[in-house]
């Protein structure tokens, strides 16, 4: 008797998404199917405007498709109620954006802790506060920002900001890290350093989906797919699911 096949971590099926640009519909995703296995590092390549970010937003539950679904551990996230979808984004997914998207009024440490704070109520937070701050401090230190905890984003370099954003994405120990052009706004050296951070996380078993237009960056991933004309095509290495 054989074991039933293990469920993939994330499975997107027939995703369609249309935007309106200047009154004209722009069909960005035209039936995207994608499977992400636990622990893998997947890169989605595509030209600017190909819908990479849109795909990532759909996988992360930040946007809704017109058609199709995204199954997380076998459950369609778009069947979730608003509260559950918010919790999915907060605890199961971590976003890393090209432009870092840190809150300018808060320090590096506070930006990281914020993601942990969102899932806590006014009453439960005092009990969690110390542990959350400690974990945030450790994460930032492990990313080489131990001496930058109390700096606001405008006092940090691009690479430092992106590392703060990575720490924020990881604070709630999400199953899936979604990175949107994480090196796109950085110089080559700093981009490489960020990529090393991702490689390190991957070695520790972190599942990563990264979208990029840069073949060299995508080369670091286990598997590469190409988004063309609204559909996923085979990339350099692995196959389409």
């Amino acid at each position, binding site marked *: 008797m054989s074991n039933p096949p293990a469920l993939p971590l994330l499975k997107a099926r027939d995703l369609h998404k249309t935007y309106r640009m200047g009154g004209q519909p722009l069909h960005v995703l035209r039936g995207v199917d994608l499977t992400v296995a636990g622990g893998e590092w997947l890169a989605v390549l595509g030209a600017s405007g190909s819908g990479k970010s849109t795909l990532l937003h759909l996988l992360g539950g*930040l946007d809704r498709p017109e058609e199709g679904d995204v199954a997380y551990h076998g459950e369609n996230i778009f069947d979730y109620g608003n509260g559950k979808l918010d919790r999915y984004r*907060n605890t199961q997914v971590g*976003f890393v954006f090209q432009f870092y998207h840190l809150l300018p009024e808060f320090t590096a440490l506070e930006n990281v802790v*914020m993601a942990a704070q969102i899932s806590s109520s006014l009453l439960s937070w005092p009990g969690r506060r110390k542990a959350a701050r400690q974990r945030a401090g450790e994460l930032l230190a492990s990313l080489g920002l131990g001496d930058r905890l109390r700096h606001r984003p405008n006092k940090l370099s691009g690479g430092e900001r992106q590392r703060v954003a990575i720490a924020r994405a990881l604070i709630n120990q999400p199953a899936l890290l979604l990175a949107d052009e994480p090196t796109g706004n950085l110089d080559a050296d700093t981009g490489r350093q960020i990529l090393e951070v991702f490689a390190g996380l991957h070695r520790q078993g972190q599942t990563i989906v990264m979208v990029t237009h840069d073949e060299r960056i995508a080369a670091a991933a286990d598997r590469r797919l190409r988004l063309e004309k609204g559909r996923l095509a085979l990339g350099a290495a692995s196959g389409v699911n």
Partner: protein
Amino acid sequence: MYKLLIILRYLRRKLTPMFAVLAVTLCTAMVIIVISIMGGFLENMRHAAQTLEGDVIIQGDMTGFPHYQELITQIEKMPKVKAAAATINSYGLLNLEDGLHTVEIMGIDPEAMDKVVGFRQTLFWTPEKIRESLDRHAPPADASDIAKRNYQLQREFLEKLNLADMAMKLQAPPEWSPRPRNDSEQPDATREVKPAPAIVPGIHVGGSNIRDEKGQYDFHNNRTISSAATLTVVPVTKSGGLLEPAARKLIVVNEFKSGLYAIDANRVYVPLGLLQEMLRMDAHADVDPETGATTGKMNPGRVTGIVVKGVPGTDVNALRDGIYQQVKTFVSSHPDTLIYRVETWEEKHSTFLGAVLKEKFLVTILFSFISIVAIVMIAVIFYMIVLEKTRDIGILRAIGASWPGIMSIFLGYGLAVGIVGAGLGFALAAAIVKNINAIQDFLTRFFGLTIWNPEVYYFDQIPSQMNPVEVTVILIVAVIASVLGAIVPAILAARMNPVEALRYE
């Protein structure tokens, strides 16, 4: 928890919310100041009216009612009554040094009246007031010795005078009283000078008292005190017919100031007995109108009203009802006592007090409309804040914040702006209300601006009184208004598409 942190941080680190706070502060302060001044004005009016009339007034017609002493004795036995005094209200002509004036005459027994309305306190020229006035006009250091000596003599003389005591007796001192005349109408030095009856006019009866720009009166300008004034009245019969006018020369011994300009410019106080006599309301032998012969009966003295003061803390309406019952019983046993009204001081002055009350209400409504402008301003400022924070909203949604969470951040922000603004507004209003007269003096002295002209308004000082209940309501409304102003921007923020918010430039 994150919402509170964000609210506090946004509030502390941005200039824009400071404008919203400023809008709430100014609006709150403005409404509190206006309400306090109007309230103070009303309260001063009420106080003035109460010091003139007591709590309850028993009113007869112009010909008066008899047996008043008996009625007063009965009323004073009532547990809630502190004191009662008989009065006569009439009208007449007063010939003062500066001309003839129509006046409202009130005949009183000053001691009895003092127990009811604090008559002594309304007397204007006290030794302190005279001293203050003289101090303001002391001759300069380089004045001539004669001027200084004259001033000193005048001062010594005036300081010895006790005008308040004279007014409490309504009797002029012998040295001011006219000397009796002999048969050839010449002053007779051999006859004893009897103290003449006195009169106490309101401070604005006649034109001798002029307020300076600070609202003060100067005694050295006063040409009325110690002068003789002729009072003329026309007695009326019960059937409404007029009798021979009666005129008496009276000496002005003091002036009173109630604070109500209409009273201070028209009323004069004279001894009750004298007015009874002049109006033929004193006790007199009954005359048969047919024969003109006396009937052997005595008609008792009459008055036109009785003023009553309740014990402190008495409900005046309950007191009025009690007195009404007492009067009703009294009238049934004394059919010749015609009393047509028992009313509280507030009822008697309801037209005037009602006007001020309505004015206060109107001003409150007007300022409420201005506050609506403040709400719109807050809405606009908050909309700007939401636009400014659009990307933050996207970030927070991306890391798991819910739309109600985003909405509550902006509503909480509105609440915080409201609380801080209302608090600062209260502090500002309290500081201004407390020092409003000092502020006005400052403006007058340095910029020549007179906001409150004491020559025009009823009171020397800008009246103000912060009512804790009104202030609390204003503060609560200010906070609610801020939250209302934040509602639309908060909804817009909550409904924002997180992906578009993240892309917002």
